């Protein structure tokens, strides 16, 4: 009996699966539910009102998102006659899956037994996987056969070209400092107070704004802007599929936040992974997730204080400010590597 139980536990805790399902999907989903609630409550706080409340007065309306989820789940899913059915349904699914896949390349600990897929190019692999999901947002806009959706998709396409370069360059500057593309090496190099946010603030700023750009966060909520293109690519989606789309956007932001936490905020530092599953795997991943959640909270606070830029202005910012900033960050990384700060 105990053998079977052990086997089950072993399968569940098999790092790639554990990483994908628990660290990539379940916990981030919980975080997303919390973040959405937090976003609405902070906005309400800034705006001198209450925000969601009566659904569960005891926990300040914390169940609001569950109620919304229940409604979305059991609402009619309308598939208009004019859409291209297969991509219309598959695109949001693919976007959802692709936005959590990068997590299999991100190590949450320095213990080799708990690496998901051990490779020395994890930084590059995770970055490459992260940049895939926007393609499916364009696809879903295209498949919707709606003018607003097509415009939304095109805006997304413009933004991809703008932010990918910036984000990738900014993240790669960490590789320049450490001389390694292995995320474990990068985290190890940040021991003590040598977090890359301090060593290389330029790259961090570029990465931070790049994430805002890529996940349609304010002030760059352009592709899904309500007031010109009515939620952009998602105009025609209803019910659960729409919920999936929204979830995918937030999950993507969560994974990006995890990346920033690992690359710039010292990963599991200052904690040093110990022996065993709990001390060696669970605690470091919790440290990373907490850092990522704090980042998410900062992102969502922007909604309350900023409007949105125009598309051409956002592209201006990306190409004229962020791109040089990212290049400078990369150069700074090389300089630090040359000086041997690490």
């Amino acid at each position, binding site marked *: 009996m105990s053998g079977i139980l052990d086997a089950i536990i072993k399968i569940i805790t098999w790092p790639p699966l554990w990483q994908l399902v628990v660290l990539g999907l379940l916990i981030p989903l919980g975080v997303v539910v919390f973040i959405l609630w937090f976003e609405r409550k902070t906005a309400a706080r800034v705006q001198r009102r209450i925000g969601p409340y009566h659904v569960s007065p005891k926990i300040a309306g914390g169940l609001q998102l569950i109620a919304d989820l229940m409604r979305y789940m059991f*609402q009619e899913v309308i598939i208009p006659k004019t859409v291209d059915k297969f991509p219309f349904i598959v695109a949001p699914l693919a976007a959802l899956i692709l936005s959590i896949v990068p997590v299999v390349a991100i190590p949450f600990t320095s213990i080799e037994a708990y690496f998901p897929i051990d490779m020395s190019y994890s930084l590059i692999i995770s970055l490459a996987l992260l940049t895939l999901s926007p393609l499916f947002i364009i696809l879903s806009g295209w498949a919707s056969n709606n003018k607003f959706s097509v415009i939304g998709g095109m805006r997304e396409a413009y933004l991809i070209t703008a932010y990918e370069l910036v984000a990738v360059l900014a993240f790669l500057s960490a590789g320049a400092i450490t001389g390694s593309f292995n995320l474990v090496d990068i985290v190890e190099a940040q021991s003590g107070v040598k977090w890359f946010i301090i060593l290389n603030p330029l790259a961090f700023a570029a990465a931070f704004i790049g994430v805002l750009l890529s996940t349609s966060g304010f002030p760059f909520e352009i592709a899904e802007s309500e007031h010109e293109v009515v939620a952009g690519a998602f105009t025609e989606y209803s019910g659960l599929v729409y919920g999936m789309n929204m979830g995918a956007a937030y999950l993507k932001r969560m994974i990006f936040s995890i990346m920033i936490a690992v690359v710039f905020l010292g990963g599991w530092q200052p904690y040093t992974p110990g022996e065993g599953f709990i001390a060696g795997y669970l605690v470091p991943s919790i440290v990373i997730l907490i850092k990522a959640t704090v980042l998410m909270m900062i992102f969502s606070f922007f909604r309350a204080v900023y409007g949105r830029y125009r598309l051409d202005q956002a592209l201006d910012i990306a190409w004229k400010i962020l791109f040089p900033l990212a290049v400078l960050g990369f150069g700074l990384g090389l300089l630090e590597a040359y000086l041997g700060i690490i």
Partner: protein
Amino acid sequence: MMIMDGNGNGEGKVYVGNINVSARKARKLLMSDLKLGKLVDWGTAFSLWPIHLTTSCCGCEFAAAWSPRYDNEQHGALPWIGPRQTNLIIIEGTVTKKMACAVRIVWEQMPQPKFAIAMGACALDGGIFYNSYNIVRPWQIVPVDVYIPGCPPRPESVAKSIIMLQKKIREKQVASKFIEEGWRPDKEYVIPKEDLCSWWRG
């Protein structure tokens, strides 16, 4: 054993692999046997998202009802952008003949289960514009669940109407019955769409 397909005919026959029958069974299982119905009603009641469709001047008080003073978001209602993602339409005052077509099209685009609140005296029976040649009554266009009297109604009464609708959904189990018994057969509209939208282009 009587097995019917989704349309209620085909008595006494067993359809193997009939998707309507399976869907019907699954709905029954989820809603009645697993007692998910209550959860669905609860979720729907606290997630009434009205659509951005301002038909007339009651929109001022509609906007005020979501302002910090009255903050209807505390009831879980959040004005949302597109018809596909919402489930509530609040008709704010007079509906002109030109707007009536838009109201009907928006209503048809919303996913079931959906609800309608008619706001203001004009939405009841014309109000101050009762003898105008360019208006229709909202009940002629959409099936209305709750009426709010007043010209314009105060924001408190908008909040009250949302609470009343929540009560109605939870007591009469409107949402779960929609799901269990198939989608609500839409009430017959008083004015057919051809009459409303004969002039519409685009």
